[in-house]
């Protein structure tokens, strides 16, 4: 009887390994590409000009802020508390490089910065050497100057600061840009779509891997059961053969001393064979018992 082997093919193992790696890579890509809380804030600004982190100490009237900003290439973000407000602002413009960003991490911690994609001025004195950063410095100075008359430092609401920035922005654009600056078009976040796609793929891969691994484990268990059943059937078959041998050994009562001695030897061998059959629990032991049975059957001329 051929031995049972677990029905696990090499190709299946490679498939499981590949899917497991895909799932792990998917999760890694998700965690690497879309890290930290700033990711959510920054992504939200794809489809909105304002983001306010819930629970942040700084206050901004979101509706008013959207109304004031309109389609201007400006975004306002109230982010979680941080010591490096300007770095957070740089994080924002790293993903939205064609805007001016106004970022708060606390009522008294704010930063204004501009992305690399924001156009440099093309009007005014030394227009060929002025960058958008130079231009923005002037805007910031004007905004801060005018904010002094409207912003109450004791209160957390910073909506007026944003309004003054927008006013300064509008005042500074005609002097620096011949055609003004382009309107900002809001769009769905490509990162969010990619994240959903990657997470979906990773989830599907993880489910497939889980199913395949579980299925392989179950098949292995089933194969083990089949192998045990096969061994049991083989033992029963050998016991049936020993029963026939016992009948043959006990049946003959030879008068001839030589035959009687041979029969006694056969009886002794039978006892040993029976002990071997009853003790056999695995393939090698059953093979050995099988060989002993066959030899004794030939001696006693008992056919199978």
């Amino acid at each position, binding site marked *: 009887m051929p031995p049972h082997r677990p029905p696990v093919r090499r190709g299946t193992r490679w498939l499981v390994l590949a899917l497991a790696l895909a799932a792990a890579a998917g999760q890694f890509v998700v965690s690497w590409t879309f890290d930290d809380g700033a990711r959510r804030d920054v992504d939200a600004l794809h489809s909105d000009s304002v983001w306010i982190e819930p629970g942040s100490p700084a206050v901004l009237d979101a509706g008013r802020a959207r109304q004031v900003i309109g389609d201007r290439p400006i975004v306002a973000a109230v982010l979680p508390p941080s010591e490096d407000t300007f770095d957070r602002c740089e994080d924002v413009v790293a993903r939205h490089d064609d805007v001016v960003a106004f970022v708060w991490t606390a009522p008294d911690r704010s930063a204004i910065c501009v992305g690399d994609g924001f156009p440099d001025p093309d009007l005014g004195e030394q227009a060929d050497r002025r960058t958008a950063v130079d231009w923005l410095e002037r805007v910031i100075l004007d905004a801060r100057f005018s904010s002094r008359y409207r912003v109450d430092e004791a209160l957390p609401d910073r909506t007026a600061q944003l309004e003054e920035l927008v006013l300064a922005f509008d005042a500074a654009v005609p002097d620096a840009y011949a055609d003004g600056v382009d309107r900002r078009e809001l769009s769905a976040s490509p990162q969010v779509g990619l994240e959903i796609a990657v997470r979906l793929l990773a989830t599907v891969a993880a*489910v497939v891997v*889980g*199913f395949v691994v*579980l*299925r392989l*484990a*179950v*098949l292995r*268990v*089933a194969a083990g059961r089949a192998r045990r*059943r*096969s061994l*049991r*059937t083989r033992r*029963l*078959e050998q*016991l*049936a053969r020993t*029963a*026939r041998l*016992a*009948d043959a050994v006990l*049946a003959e009562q030879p008068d001839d001393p030589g035959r009687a001695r041979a029969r006694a030897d056969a009886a002794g061998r039978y006892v040993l064979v029976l002990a071997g059959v009853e003790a056999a629990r695995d393939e090698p032991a059953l093979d050995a018992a099988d060989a002993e049975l066959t030899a004794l059957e030939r001696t006693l001329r008992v056919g199978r």
Partner: protein
Amino acid sequence: MTGVLVGAAAAAVLVAGALVPLLRRVPGRRAARAGARSAHARLGHLLATVDADPDLARRANERWTTAGALLARAESAADLALAERTAAEGIALLARS
């Protein structure tokens, strides 16, 4: 809450699908048992009714006893087939007489 329920249902379906090979019953086991019992009973009937050669009858009787023992211990279709084969050997012995 709904997400948890959907997840639990999906996990249950996943596990049930994976467990199918263990839950599936081997077909034909009932027929194999019926066949083995039938052969054993037929051999017993022949032993009781046929006037056979004593040596062949003794050997057929051993096959009947062994087939009965195998039937009692059978757990799989292969075990039952072995019992039926053993009873058939006894029937063949009686047929020779």
